């Protein structure tokens, strides 16, 4: 199986310059990107497998002496390529605010409490079926300075590797039905509605554990499809 990484697949990505998200104004390239073919340097990428994680790294509720406050949840799903094949043995890293909407970071000065039992970072490696699972608490919404009365919808940050350095993806997982969606310029930087909804997890009643935790499913699709006669590799 030889994978190719067509650039058309990136069409739903946000534009670098999205003025409604103010920080993009001075942090987006103003000159055209240089088109280049994928060489061995782009077709390869970091390999971080099961040796990169330790048991318990995927349970954010057990990193301290006590249990964190908030609503315990399970977040799980599969990592796929564009042909819907599982991406096995790939590193998935997450970080998030605590249940009050506060990040463990000196720069976050939101007047909501830190939780001594919650850091908010986790990692997992997908199994042979591309499956990953985390246990955490639902992150709170929080205000930010982008515009008057700006609040971020609840979200968990995801970082995923995949097969090459060009499949690298950093994204955010949202929760279904969030009332803040229409007002968030980061969420809406993905202008196509169907693409936007690919960042929203679904409530998973079947895998909700009775008397213990709600479950949300978040499948991730990375670049990469099998080479076919209509897709000749550019060299």
């Amino acid at each position, binding site marked *: 199986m030889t994978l190719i990484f067509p650039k058309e*697949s*990136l069409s*739903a*990505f*946000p534009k*670098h310059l999205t003025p409604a*998200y103010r*920080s*993009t*104004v*001075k*942090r987006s*390239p*103003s*000159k055209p*990107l*240089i*088109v*280049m*073919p994928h*060489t*061995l*340097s782009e*077709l*390869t*990428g*970091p*390999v*971080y497998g099961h040796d990169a*994680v330790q048991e318990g790294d995927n349970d954010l509720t057990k*990193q301290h002496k006590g249990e964190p406050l908030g609503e315990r949840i399970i977040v799980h799903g599969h990592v*796929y*390529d*564009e*042909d819907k094949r599982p991406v096995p043995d790939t590193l998935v*890293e997450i*970080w998030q605010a605590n249940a009050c909407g506060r990040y*463990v*970071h*000196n*720069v976050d000065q939101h007047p909501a409490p*830190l939780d001594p039992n919650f*850091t*908010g*970072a986790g990692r997992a490696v997908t199994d042979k079926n591309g499956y990953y699972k985390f246990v955490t608490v639902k992150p709170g919404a929080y205000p930010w300075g982008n515009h008057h009365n700006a609040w971020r919808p609840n979200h968990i*940050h995801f*970082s995923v590797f995949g097969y*090459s350095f060009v499949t*690298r*993806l*950093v*994204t*955010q997982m949202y929760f279904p039905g969030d009332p803040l969606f229409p007002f968030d310029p*980061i*969420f809406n930087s*993905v202008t196509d509605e169907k*693409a936007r909804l*690919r960042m929203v997890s679904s409530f998973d009643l079947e895998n909700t554990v009775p008397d213990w935790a709600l479950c949300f499913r978040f499948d991730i699709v990375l670049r990469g*499809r099998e080479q076919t006669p209509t897709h000749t590799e550019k*060299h």
Partner: protein
Amino acid sequence: MSEITPSQTVGPFFAYGLAPHSRCDWQPSKIYDWKDTVGADLVTPDASGTRIRIEGRVLDGDGLPINDAMIEIWQADGQGRYAHPRDDRGARPNSKFKGFGRSSTDKAGVYSFDTIKPGSVPGPDGKPQAPHIVVCIFSRGMLRQVYTRIYFADEAANAADPILALVPEERRGTLIAHKGPQGNVSLYTFDIRVQGDNETVFFDI
């Protein structure tokens, strides 16, 4: 056919999750420590080649330091071999060298890596590429990552590099790291200007 998951910004608070022991001072208290999987020191005991340090600033369109960026690098080892199954040219002598590093920027917008100078790798049509490192930049205010490359000022092979040749001549200089002495490790400086005058060349890959 499945359509890919869109990118979103890494935001300002990634450090404790992705680069807990890098240059960013994020910790409100030691109880919140988290262990590194990926760090800014790529050197492994078995890695042969020239040890180098790469350091630079990340600057925004006003020339101000970006103090919440994350820089990732991907490179071949000293013999020009990638630690990846798609590099199928037989056993690698530096098998522990992973070729991947991650650094956050600090208050002054500075990132740094300790690594091995990469060897030449094959390019399109089998012609060699000059030694280079692929760089991926994430930050608050970037809704998707941007990619650039680091080349080395002291490499004659740059003149024949097929990728540098795609870049307008007047902009090629933004891809060149320059050498300065520092102790017994060679220091290269490579600033990244995200926007504006002398903007770093970014690649559409």
